[in-house]
């Protein structure tokens, strides 16, 4: 046994978009154990539910994360709507699906860029973000905001998208898909990318299940679970199936995300084809009472929203279990036995969103 040393990784590190600290226990160049510490950016957003009106809370829920913002507000609104036994209009459900899939594409493109940057492929990083920028423009055109959409509210959505804007958005998305296909080809075929990711950070199927991995981390290990299969919103009416890869390594997790972007393009097209005319919101009757768990699929995995209302305009308790929090135990497992130089890529393949995890 070689001499053990501890190398601190983070909270400030060039590959980390957000602060998380890992103490890497090393034996020569091999990581024996990773000890995490979190809590650098806790903002107390859950506590604010006790002070804010439950309808205004949708804006705060959206600000839990700057990347998967829309699905956060959607999850919160779905939980409140379930407590109020509120049936929201079909058009609003379809618009929510379109926006959440746009949000998934933009999050995955951001991740692809960051990962390319992590293994030192800077031009690929720039190209991923170039495509993402065009998608942000589309998001701005349809919802009014670039990253914080601000369109989801309890009882539906705040803004309708007219047929002309939707048609233009679909055309632009088709052009974007063609551009994205070139970038996806580099990620899935290029030798230098494969060398950094194939066979690195393997998470076997059993471990993925046992450690509670979610999202692409779980599906990259061959488990076909996606919270969209719960058929919330209108996912039950669309034709899709969870994307899985068997290898369980960094490349598999990357391929899951690459294929999910194509799937999201398809889901947007399907939703836009099936959307019907009608109102986009209903009036909110009274205040929420009772408890509810809402489960949704975020770009990073399954998010769980717990709300407890006591019949007043403030919630009694609001709690979010975010996908990054669930993906930390699998991360610690896959870091064991890896090379020090692979740590940045492995950490990024779970798509860590620390502001989500700490709220």
């Amino acid at each position, binding site marked *: 046994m070689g001499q053990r040393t501890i190398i601190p990784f983070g909270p400030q590190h060039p590959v980390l978009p957000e602060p998380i600290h890992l103490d890497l226990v090393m034996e020569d160049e091999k990581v024996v154990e990773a000890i995490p510490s979190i809590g650098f950016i806790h903002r107390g957003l859950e506590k604010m539910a006790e002070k*804010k*009106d439950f309808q*205004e809370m949708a*804006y705060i829920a959206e600000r839990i994360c700057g990347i998967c913002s829309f699905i956060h507000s959607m999850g919160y609104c779905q939980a409140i709507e379930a407590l109020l036994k509120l049936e929201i209009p079909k058009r609003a459900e379809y618009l929510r699906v379109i926006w959440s899939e746009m949000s998934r594409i933009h999050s995955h493109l951001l991740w692809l860029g960051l990962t390319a940057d992590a293994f030192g*492929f800077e*031009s*690929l990083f720039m*190209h991923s973000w*170039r495509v993402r*920028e065009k998608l942000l*423009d589309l998001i*701005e*055109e*349809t919802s*009014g*905001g670039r990253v*914080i959409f*601000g369109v989801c509210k309890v009882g539906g959505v*705040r*803004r309708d998208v007219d047929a002309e*804007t939707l048609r233009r958005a679909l055309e632009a998305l088709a052009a974007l898909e063609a551009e994205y296909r*070139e*970038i996806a*080809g*580099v990620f899935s*075929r*290029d*030798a*230098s990318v*494969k060398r950094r990711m194939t066979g690195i950070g393997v998470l076997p199927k059993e471990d993925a299940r046992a450690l509670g991995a979610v999202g692409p981390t779980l599906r990259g290990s061959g488990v076909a679970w996606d919270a969209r299969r719960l058929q919330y919103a209108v996912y039950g009416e669309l034709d899709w199936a969870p994307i899985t890869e068997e290898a369980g390594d960094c490349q598999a997790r990357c391929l899951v995300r690459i294929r999910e972007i194509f799937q999201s393009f398809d889901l947007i097209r399907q939703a836009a084809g099936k959307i019907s005319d009608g109102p986009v919101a209903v009036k909110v009757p009274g205040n929420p009472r009772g408890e509810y768990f809402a489960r949704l699929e975020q770009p990073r995995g399954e998010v769980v929203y717990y709300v407890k209302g006591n019949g007043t305009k403030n919630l009694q308790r609001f709690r979010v279990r975010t996908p990054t929090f669930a993906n930390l135990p699998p991360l610690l497992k896959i870091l064991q036995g890896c090379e020090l130089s692979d740590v940045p890529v492995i950490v990024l393949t779970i798509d860590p969103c620390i502001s989500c995890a700490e709220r």
Partner: protein
Amino acid sequence: MPHLVIAKLLTKSAARKPSTRLYPAEKRAPPKGARGRLVMKQIETCVFCGVCGKKCPTRAIAVKRTDKTWELDRLKCIVCGECVEICPKDCLAMEGEHATAFVAKKIETHVQKPKPAASDPT
């Protein structure tokens, strides 16, 4: 394993105009419907009902009926547009161009000028 798969993409990229703009010299026109910044369009028609202030999720708007003033703390405003939707007199508007950076905290105050006295019909 194929090497330099990115070559095609790079060649295309080299032949094309830059994807970036020389911001701030060259600015992008905001898309229609973008929420950039809240503006008080016409203080003259405001009736100081205060609904915008009550509806504001961050309490960025303060309306004083007695002084006939409408105040906005732009650093608190999250540009959600609730006030624009609710305004009964359509005085508020959302501009696509976003607000510029600040160097000091400041409250924007709009004061309604007293209406000219009605001319004596006699």
